[in-house]
């Protein structure tokens, strides 16, 4: 941007004001959430709105674990996200490498079919999947929540991202390794993967965020409270405790924290990743 031509103090001040206003609208819900999470039930209703509670009720955060199996939700979310991320990065990079670098027959056709499947609305396949999983006895287990994202649309997106990265690697590098007697898997594991680290990081963050926030699949496949993930557990909590906002908000704060930490650590790479692939989920 030609910031030099615009750089007038007045215009900068206006920009700051506007930006502050918009940022506030974006952030206020979080501040309100944090504030409510420490309140006594009766002080939620006070008027005028109280940003800083008179007394901080840390007990809300402890009570959450007693009211709902919150630690369970947490554990389920963490381990499902971990398995899905590992699975996606492994299988998608394997396929992405082949689609980028191994000239096999039918490569382009298969790749096109995979890509075109990305526009299938999830709701269409969810119905037969439910029956399929019921047939297998996998309803109310974590298997659908793990397998569907790795091999479904999420995995295809992963292939696409990884392929983009492998394509940029010069072929000479591979040919040299081949002459040295490396087989394909060694080339993939020893040469390609280290080069594709930025791609794997992007894919990891994307997949983690998607899985951490996934709602539709847990809603369909999970019935038992003990097996619920955070978004599903929290959404049910709104019904059951009704207006017990102080508990709901402390649970929500705890559910959001890991994601915000991950985001602040990986922020630049993530935003670059979004811009680079030019794709949304």
């Amino acid at each position, binding site marked *: 941007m030609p910031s030099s031509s615009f750089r007038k103090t007045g215009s900068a001040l206006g*920009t700051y004001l506007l930006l502050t206003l*918009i940022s506030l609208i974006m952030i206020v819900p979080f501040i309100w959430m944090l504030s409510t999470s420490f309140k006594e039930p009766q002080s939620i*209703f006070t008027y005028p709105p109280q940003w800083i509670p008179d007394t901080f009720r840390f007990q809300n955060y402890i009570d959450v674990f007693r009211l709902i199996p919150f630690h369970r939700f947490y554990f389920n979310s963490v381990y499902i996200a971990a398995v899905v991320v590992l699975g996606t990065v492994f299988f998608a990079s394997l*396929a992405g490498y082949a689609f980028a670098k191994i000239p096999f027959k039918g*490569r382009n056709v298969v790749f096109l079919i995979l890509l075109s499947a990305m526009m299938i609305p999830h709701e269409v*396949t969810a119905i037969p999947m439910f029956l399929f999983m019921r047939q297998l006895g996998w309803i109310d287990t974590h298997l659908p929540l793990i397998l569907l994202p790795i091999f479904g649309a999420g*995995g295809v997106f992963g292939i696409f991202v990884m392929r983009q990265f492998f394509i940029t690697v010069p072929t000479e590098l591979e040919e040299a390794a081949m002459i040295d007697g490396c087989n*394909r898997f060694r080339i993939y594991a020893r040469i390609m993967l280290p080069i594709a680290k930025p791609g794997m990081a992007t894919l990891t963050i994307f997949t983690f965020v998607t899985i951490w926030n996934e709602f539709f699949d847990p809603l369909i496949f999970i019935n038992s409270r003990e097996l619920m993930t955070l978004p599903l557990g929290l959404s049910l909590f709104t019904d059951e405790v009704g207006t017990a906002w102080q508990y709901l908000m402390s649970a929500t704060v705890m559910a959001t924290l890991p994601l915000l930490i991950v985001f602040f650590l990986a922020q630049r790479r993530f935003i670059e990743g979004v811009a680079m692939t030019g794709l949304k989920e």
Partner: protein
Amino acid sequence: MTHSRKRTGRGPLAREAQIAGWLFVSPMVLGFTLLLLFPMGLALYMSLTDWPLLGDHQFIGLENYRNVMTDAMFWKVLANTVYFTAGLVPLNIVLALLLALLLSRSLRGIGIFRTATFVPVMTSLIVWSIVWKLMYATESGLINQLLLMIGIKGPAWLYNQDLAMPAVIVTSVLKNVGLNMVLFIAAIQQVPRSLYEAATLDGAGRKGTFFHVTLPMITPTVFLTMVMTVIGSLKVFGQIYVMTQGGPSNSTKVLVYYIWEKAFKLFQFGYASSLAYVLFFIVLILTLLQWQLRKRWVFNEGDA
């Protein structure tokens, strides 16, 4: 590239490439066939049946689709979906573009503002919706408390037939505007600086520069984000589920919510599948349209 392909085109290396290639892609292709292609086909078949939770299913041909066409609730949810999309897309695109223009300037502390705008994108839609449900709450909600300070008694936002959908739209725009903003920032930063310099020499003001340089150069991104946002809006579900459950009196019941209700609450899998296929056809048409129009904007891009 052609050279090396020719070299590996025959001989033992080529055989090795066939085997290795298929071996590498087989887990994904297998999983994909089983978990996407097969259910896709089955869903099509199911849409032609009466398929209850228990008991046998019955092939009924196009009956479900005929019923969809005469289902008053289908037209209602379709209208709601269009309302949501038509409300959300222009708001989202304009706000994202405005933000991108502001945030692609090199100002001190710009990263803080970018982060603030992007945090909702990262947050779970469910968490965001729960927090906004609290914001909209009639008595304890922040919005009505603030309104009360200037002497206005706020309405019951999510329990009012006319206000519930706009309320959900606003929440949804704020949730996702950061994503389009990032794409716009990337596009704006790719506009050659020389064009701006030329515009400045021509005496173009800020408005002129935007309409004659920036906007034409980023139309591909505008178009892409528009189509993607439309497709995303057609599939709105989570915020509806948390904030309104489709109410009050079905005023926020959207297509995917209806599909979910039919399939997983009422277990009318056949009918739900035909509804899902209707959604699929809408998405398919939009995607093909995007593909067709792509040529046009790619041409524009080279032309500019």
